[in-house]
């Protein structure tokens, strides 16, 4: 199949799905931030792509609930991620957090979220478990069919337990200290979130951009990018 045919097929899918989405909108609000999907109580989602590994899969579940005191609908979420390109269950990230819209002006929303995580990693120099948090904001346009937002977030590992491998001790530093280390890693991400509500229950999106992980972290291109899917029910 030629590139032109691929493009034609993509255009066809785009317009038919956009039309379907506009029709579905008669039944309920579409393309709003997750916490604003008033018709649903539950959410399952996945992210797959370059996210601290060349191919990471994250799957999660979210539960919506209203908080009268702050007049906000909150999304309580939890997810699990692991690198799947070279599957190793000792590398993982478990995260739980809360998300809501801080500001709402028409179709302009400012979703914010805070999560806490436990990370695990094992490689040839250490085995580690880290405790961290992530604070993020994704201001942007969340329309009926499409969403386009910027996203900015900081992921801070507050403490990590490191156990050095015997290979590291043998070949580099025999006196390396095992134990808890404070604030061993901080990463900042700045990118875009683009989403398309294919159906009122189903959202397909892309998150990607630049990530900073320390001034000497230049051996790998400083990027992230994942395909994001959501299903509400």
């Amino acid at each position, binding site marked *: 199949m030629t590139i032109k045919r691929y493009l034609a097929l993509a255009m066809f899918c785009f317009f038919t799905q956009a039309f379907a989405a506009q029709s579905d909108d008669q039944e309920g609000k579409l393309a709003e931030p997750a916490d604003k999907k008033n018709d649903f109580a539950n959410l399952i989602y996945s992210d797959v792509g370059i996210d*601290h*590994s*060349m*191919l990471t899969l994250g799957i999660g579940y979210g539960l919506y609930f209203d908080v009268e005191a702050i007049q906000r609908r909150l999304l309580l979420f939890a997810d699990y991620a692991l*690198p799947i*390109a*070279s599957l*190793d269950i000792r*590398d993982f*990230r478990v995260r739980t957090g809360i998300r809501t819209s801080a500001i709402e002006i028409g179709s302009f929303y400012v979703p914010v979220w805070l999560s806490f995580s436990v*990370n695990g*990693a*094992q*490689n*040839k*120099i*250490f085995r*580690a478990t*880290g405790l*961290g948090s992530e604070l993020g904001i994704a201001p942007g346009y969340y329309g009926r069919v499409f969403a386009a937002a910027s996203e900015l977030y900081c*992921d801070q*590992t*507050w*403490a*990590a337990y*490191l156990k050095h*491998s015997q*290979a*590291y001790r*043998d*070949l*580099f*530093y025999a*006196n*390396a*200290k095992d*134990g*808890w*280390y*404070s*604030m*061993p*890693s*901080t*990463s900042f991400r700045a990118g875009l979130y683009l989403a398309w509500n294919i159906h009122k229950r189903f959202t397909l999106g892309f998150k990607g951009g630049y990530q900073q*992980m*320390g*001034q*000497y*972290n*230049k*051996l*790998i291109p400083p990027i992230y990018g994942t395909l994001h899917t959501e299903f509400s029910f």
Partner: protein
Amino acid sequence: MIHVFMPMIFLVLALINGCQDPGKSGNLVPKTVDEDPSLPALEFNNSKFHVETFGVPSKPVIIMLHGGPGNDYRYLLPLKERHNNYSLVDDYFLVFWDQRGCGLSQRHDRSELTLDKYAQDLDQLVEHFAPNNKPVVFIGHSWGGQYAAQYMDRHPKRMSGCVMMEPGPLSAELGKKLTTIKINPVAIWLNDWMWGRQLVAASDHERADYYLALGVLSQEEVKPERHSKPVPGWRMGTAVSLYLAMEALGSGSHFDFTQHLSEVEVPILFVVGGNTEDLGADFQRIQMKPFKSSALEIIPNAGHNEIAFSEAGQSVAKIRKYLDALNLRRP
């Protein structure tokens, strides 16, 4: 709410306060000479270097140049050991040193990590250990061979001899003859590397040097064409790897250490491992061309690191024969 959050904040602060600092030398990586005065050191060119010498200073000087840039001299130490009842220390004064920003030498920021600074360092080191045109020989492995070529290109008449053990490309142009490294995006080492950064990020020299050890320990997967096992080191020099290896000597650079090599009068010995593909015999035969006189010795069944480490005995035998022919020990 404050009643809930305040104890949590205090708990987190107490936890952090009781933790070790990953950015403090001595925890993840050893201290450098400017942090530990008990280490053997020498100060020159506005830096402090980790330097060890072996043998009698009055004998002809051999300066060891380690690879990288970013490695250190620890893996070269087998070259001073006694092999078949002979050690180079019997006849020569050996100088082992960690280059600027590497091993246990002082760390520097980007502005101090340039090829020009490196050239000045070696000029001053030679002048310190071999003043007044005293005989001096370089034994350079990998980048160390390139470093030796940089010196000879600037001082073609100064050297008494030079052993180049699988040197990297002596010019950017020669580098184009090497096959480009193909990185497998699903390789375990690459994903381990990326994932682990969530727990130790290269925010300072200490963490960056620690983390680069992961690359060294994964060497067999990162550079399979070298057929090399990981070799020991004191401590990696990540900033040097970034600014010299990847930028000043990397793809897109324009370095050329070959312009005056044809003026070098002394014969040059090239030593290669029989198993090495990219920097092996075929490539070194091309690199030998600028020199008036050179010879190639092959260490069978050895890879890139093995010629200086596990098979150092075989290399020392070849080096001894070469040095004997130079007749440096005459009164």
